[in-house]
C-alpha cells in the first residue's frame, strides 16, 4: 500500500540510501532509527555504499498484483558493507547465471506502478557488475 504521504516520507531512503549511524557504537541502521541496541540515541545521517554482494536470491514467479507484469523477476538480499543489508530486485541479468557472492551495483530505477492511474514509484535496484 503506497500512499502519497508515505511515499514522500520514504524518499530519503528510496532515492538516496540515507541511513543512521550511531555516534556511540558506530552501528548503521537502514532505515534510520532513534534508539540503538547499545542504548544510545544520537545518530548521524550517512549514505550507504552503492556497491555490494548478493547474499541470497529468489526468482518470483507468482507476484503481488502490482508486480504481475514484471514476473518472473529476481529479488535478493544484498550486503552493502558495514553489516547493512537490503532486500532489493536484481535486474539486467540472467537469473540462471546468478550466484550467491555476485558483486552488484545499486541503481535508481522504477520499482512499481500502482493504482488505476499507474503512478510510478521509484527506488533502488541492483545490477551485476
Amino acid at each position: 500500500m503506497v500512499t502519497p504521504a508515505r511515499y514522500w516520507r520514504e524518499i530519503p531512503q528510496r532515492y538516496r540510501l540515507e541511513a543512521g549511524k550511531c555516534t556511540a557504537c558506530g552501528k548503521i541502521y537502514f532505515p534510520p532509527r532513534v534508539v540503538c541496541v547499545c542504548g544510545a540515541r544520537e545518530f548521524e545521517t550517512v549514505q550507504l555504499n552503492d556497491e555490494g554482494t548478493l547474499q541470497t536470491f529468489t526468482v518470483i514467479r507468482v507476484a503481488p498484483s502490482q508486480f504481475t507484469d514484471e514476473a518472473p523477476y529476481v529479488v535478493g538480499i544484498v550486503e552493502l558493507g558495514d553489516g547493512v543489508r537490503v532486500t532489493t530486485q536484481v535486474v539486467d541479468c540472467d537469473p540462471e547465471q546468478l550466484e550467491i557472492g555476485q558483486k552488484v551495483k545499486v541503481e535508481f530505477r522504477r520499482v512499481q506502478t500502482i493504482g488505476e492511474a499507474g503512478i510510478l514509484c521509484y527506488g533502488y535496484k541492483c545490477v551485476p557488475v
Partner: protein
Amino acid sequence: MRDVAVIGIGMTKWGELWDKALRDIFVETALLAIDDAGVDHIDSMYIGCMTSGLFVGQEHLASQLADYLGLGPIPAARVESACASGGLAVKQGFLEVASGYSDIVLVSGVEKMTDVGGDQATYALGTAADQEYEGYHGITFPGLYALIARAHMHAYGTTREQLAHVAVKNHRHGALNPLAQYPFEVTVEGVLNSTRIADPLRILDCSPITDGAAAAILCPLDMAKSLTDKPIVKIAGFGHATDTIALHDREDLTFLAATAKAGEAAYAMSGKTPEDIDVVEVHDCFTIAEICVIEALGFMEKGKGGTAAESGLTALGGKIPVNTSGGLKAKGHPVGATGVAQIVELVKQLRGDADKRQVEGARVGLAQNMGGSGGSTLVHILEVQ
C-alpha cells in the same frame, strides 16, 4: 504461579469452507472443545487471528465471537502475532489461569481466508513482512522462505530433494488425519515437478490457503481431575521470543533465532531437553521452515536439518516424529488457527487418541508456532500426567 492443564480440545475439518462464515467456524470448534472438557462455563477467552480485517473486513472480533458463543459479557481478547497468533492465544490463556485470575479459559485460533481472491490473500499475508523495506520491492512470503532456502542450500549443501522429502513426509502423515485439508500423499518427483512459485520453492513446498479454527480449554491442574476423566495434559512450559521481521536484518539468514530462544525458555521452564520430547508439531509453512526449525530447537545439528525427513528420522515410526498431524503443509494453514491446532494434535497424541498416526507411548510433546519469516515464535511443551 499455578500449574495449568488442557482439559478440552476442538477442531473440525479444514479446507475451503464456502458455506461457513468466520463466526460459524469458530463457534463450531469452540463448542467441540467445551463439550470435550465437559465444563459448564467459561471465565475468559483469547482468540488468535492474524488479520480478519483484511480477510473478511471484520475487526472487534473477540466481542463478536464471545457473543455468538453465548458467553457475553465475559472478557474476550483477540491477540495477533501474524501466523503465531494462535500460539500467542495459548500463552495468554496459560498466564491468565496460572496467575489465578481465571479458572476456565477458552483459547482459540481462527482464520477465514477464502472470502478474498488470491491477490488479496497474498497481500494480507505479506503484511507480516516489513511492508516498506521488503514488500515494496516485490518479495512475497514464499519468496522470503526461498531466500532462506537458497542460503541454507549454499551454506550447508542442503538439496532440493531434501526439501521435497519434508512435503512428502507431512503429506504421508496428513493422509492419516481426517481433518486435514489435503489428506493425500505426494511423491518427491511430484514435488520437484510442481509449479514454480519462488525459486527454489515450488507449490508443493508451500502450505495452502485455508479456512479453519481450533480451540482448547485450559484450567488449573488441581481442578482438572475433578472436571474430566480423560488423561490430563499439563502445559509444562512455554517460551516466547521475537526477532527482526525483516529477514535481511538478521545476522544469519538461515538461523531462526526467535525459535531457538523460545525453545530454550520452554525447555528451561519444563525441565525438559530435546531428548525428552516424544512428538513434535512445528511451523512448516514452507518445507525449508521445518528444516530450520528442527535445527533451532536442537533436534538436529545446525546445517543437518535437511537430512531428517529424508532419512525417516522425523517420520511416524522414526526417532522424533515431526508434524504427525500433516503439518501446515497437508493439514492446512488458516494462519491464526495454526498455533492452537498444534496443541490439539499434541493433546490427541498424549491422550493416546491419534488413531492411525499415534506415536506409541508419547508422554511429552512440543509445539512451535512462528510468525512471518521468523519474527515471532511461541513454543509450548505439554506432558501427560
